[in-house]
Structures are given as structure tokens and as C-alpha cells.
């Protein structure tokens, strides 16, 4: 078997452990594990950035499936909104998949730093916003309602500013295919902050969407040999194990703490990538 990289049992074990940690944090925050996994595979293990991105993209698909199974039956996934936004996010994913080969590493680092930095600031500025209407309000065609364990109430919401949500979903698709970070990292804060979707519903809907979004570019990364099967397998298996732990903990954590943790993680990731460019 011939792989362009030397893949030892130690590399496999480290990638699997990194996948588990990334999957746990990703499931907890509803953003996929890629935002942690890509910097780790690139900076710590020393994989070329494009291989790190493609490996991570496979874990995004796995995370999406596992997280979606866990939220089925709780009305948290907004299937109609998700499907509509997928038209935009898959288009972004396809565009990124087709152009990934031509992007430079420096371009990818700058892009990563900018995206994560902007979102960290956005999440922090809206920590206490709830986006919940009275239970009697009609949620409209795209809105939704679900029962929230934390408050013991039925949560009803309407979707606002749909064109903004579509635009950001397209951008999230590009981010997903070019950075391997799911794209939920963009959609969750934005659906929450600008479009009126509560954080838990935004996270569950986004988790469903990121699988299709990643699948819109992953076949191209695979065809271009950026996906190394043993490394991708190790990362996926690690992420699957980690996601289950993250979900268990996430069901018990308060929304405010989830937002603070999300902002802190994004800020660190952003600074690390700006530092790489210096």
C-alpha cells in the first residue's frame, strides 16, 4: 500500500485521540470538531494543511450524523429551514471543492483566522439574547417549537432575515470545503444572533446541515488524494467516540456557558492562525 505520508501506529493513535477531543468539544458546541482538529493536525502533527482540512472534513460528516441521531424526536432539528439553507451551503461546498486544489496555504491560514475571530466577537456580544416567543405564537412556515429541559418550557421561534441566513449558509459551505471546519461555526452564531433561532435549535439544525455541506466537497478532496484513508479512519473513529461524550455533557450544560466556551475557543483558534502568518 502506498501513501505519500509515512503513517505509523503512533500517528494513528495520536490522530484518533485528537479526533476524540475535537469531537467532544464539537458536539458540545454544535460546530463540528474541525475547528480544533485542523490546527492540531497541521501545527502539532505536521500534516500539510490541505490533508488536515480533508481529514477533518470526513470527521465533520461523521459528527453531523451522530449529533443528528441524538436530537431526532426532540423537535430541535428544523428540517424545513435546514433543507432550504442546504441549497446555499451545498452550493458553497461544491464551489470550494472544485477550487480547493488551487488555494495557497497562506490564503487558508488568513481565511481561518479571520472567520474564527469575527465569530468570537459576535458570540460574546450577544451572550444573553434568548430569541423566544410566547408559546401561543404561530412559528410560521420556517420557524419551530420544542420543549426545553433546562427551563421546563415550550420554546417557540420565528425565522427572521432569511436572505441573510441563505448568504451565510453559502459562505459556511465555502468555509466548510476550504477549511474543513463544518461551517456550523458560522451558521450557529448567526442563526442565533440575526435570524431569531434559539441556540439549541440552531445547533441541531446546523449539525444536520454540515453533513450534506461537507459531502458537497469531500468527494473532490477524495479524488484529489487529500484524504489519506488510515488517518481519516482514525480521526473519524476518534470523533465518533468523542461526540457521544460531548452530547452527554452538552445536555446538562447551560446555554450561557456554552456560548462563553464557544467564544473562548474561537478567540484562541483565531489568534493561533494570525500568529502563523507573522
Amino acid at each position, binding site marked *: 500500500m502506498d501513501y505519500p505520508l509515512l503513517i505509523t501506529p503512533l500517528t494513528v493513535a495520536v490522530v484518533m485521540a485528537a479526533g476524540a477531543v475535537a469531537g467532544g468539544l464539537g458536539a458540545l458546541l454544535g460546530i463540528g470538531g474541525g475547528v480544533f482538529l485542523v490546527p492540531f493536525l497541521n501545527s502539532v502533527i505536521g500534516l500539510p494543511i490541505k490533508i488536515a482540512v480533508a481529514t477533518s472534513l470526513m470527521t465533520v460528516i461523521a459528527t453531523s450524523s451522530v449529533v443528528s441521531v441524538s436530537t431526532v424526536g426532540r423537535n430541535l432539528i428544523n428540517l424545513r429551514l435546514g*433543507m432550504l439553507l442546504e*441549497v446555499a451551503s451545498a452550493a458553497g461546498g461544491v464551489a470550494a*471543492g472544485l477550487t480547493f486544489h488551487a488555494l495557497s496555504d497562506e490564503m487558508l491560514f488568513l481565511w481561518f483566522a479571520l472567520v474564527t475571530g469575527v465569530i468570537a466577537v459576535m458570540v460574546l456580544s450577544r451572550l444573553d439574547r434568548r430569541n423566544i416567543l410566547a408559546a401561543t405564537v404561530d412559528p410560521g412556515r420556517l420557524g419551530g417549537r420544542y420543549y426545553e429541559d433546562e427551563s421546563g418550557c415550550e420554546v417557540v421561534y420565528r425565522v427572521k432575515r432569511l436572505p441573510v441566513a441563505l448568504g451565510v449558509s453559502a459562505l459556511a459551505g465555502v468555509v466548510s470545503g476550504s477549511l474543513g471546519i463544518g461551517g456550523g461555526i458560522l451558521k450557529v452564531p448567526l442563526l442565533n444572533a440575526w435570524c431569531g433561532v434559539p441556540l439549541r435549535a440552531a445547533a441541531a439544525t446546523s449539525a444536520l446541515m454540515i453533513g450534506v455541506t461537507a459531502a458537497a466537497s469531500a468527494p473532490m478532496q477524495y479524488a484529489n488524494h487529500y484524504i489519506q484513508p488510515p488517518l481519516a479512519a482514525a480521526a473519524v473513529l476518534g470523533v465518533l467516540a468523542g461526540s457521544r461524550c460531548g452530547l452527554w455533557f452538552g445536555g446538562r450544560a447551560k446555554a450561557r456557558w456554552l456560548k462563553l466556551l464557544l467564544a473562548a475557543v474561537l478567540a484562541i483558534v483565531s489568534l493561533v492562525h494570525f500568529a502563523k502568518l507573522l
Partner: protein
Amino acid sequence: MTPPPDALARLEAHVGRLFVAGVSVSSAMLAAGLALFLFAPDQPAASQLLNAGLLVLMATPMLRVLVSVVEYVRMGDWFFASTTLAVIAELSVTVWSALRLRG
């Protein structure tokens, strides 16, 4: 128009079962392939299992979209059936391009 809650719940249940099946099959293949890669690297089955597992993983969300089209058509919800078809068209572009590159 708001769809009947039982129809959406049925779609959600189908989607859930599909994800469980896709993740179980792909992770079993990846685990077996990885074990062979580590302990019997000369076996061609290692590479075959790893690649098959990755392909099943990529196909799972695509199948979810196909299942959704069927359900939206059954609900008579043509707006969402057509948005779902648009996603399938986009995914087809990627799969076709990848097949051309590999083939």
C-alpha cells in the same frame, strides 16, 4: 402552510434510522480496515475496507437528502421537494467531477 407534525416526525424518524445505519456500517468498516492496516498492512483488504468505509460515510448525508425528497413528495410539499432536488443537483456536480478526476 405548516406541514402536519406527524409527517415531519416520520421524516425525522427515517432520517434518524438512516444515520444510525450509515454510521454503524462505515465505522465498522473503518475500524476493521484500520486494524488490518496496523497489524497486517500487506493485506489488500485493509485499503479496500478503509476506502469503502469512507465512501459509505460520504454517501450517508447524500442518501438523507434522497429520503427527504421522497417524503416531501409524499407530503405534497412541492416547495420543499424542489429545494431538496436542488441540493441533489448540486451534490451530483461534485460526485460527477470527482468520478471524472478519479476515473
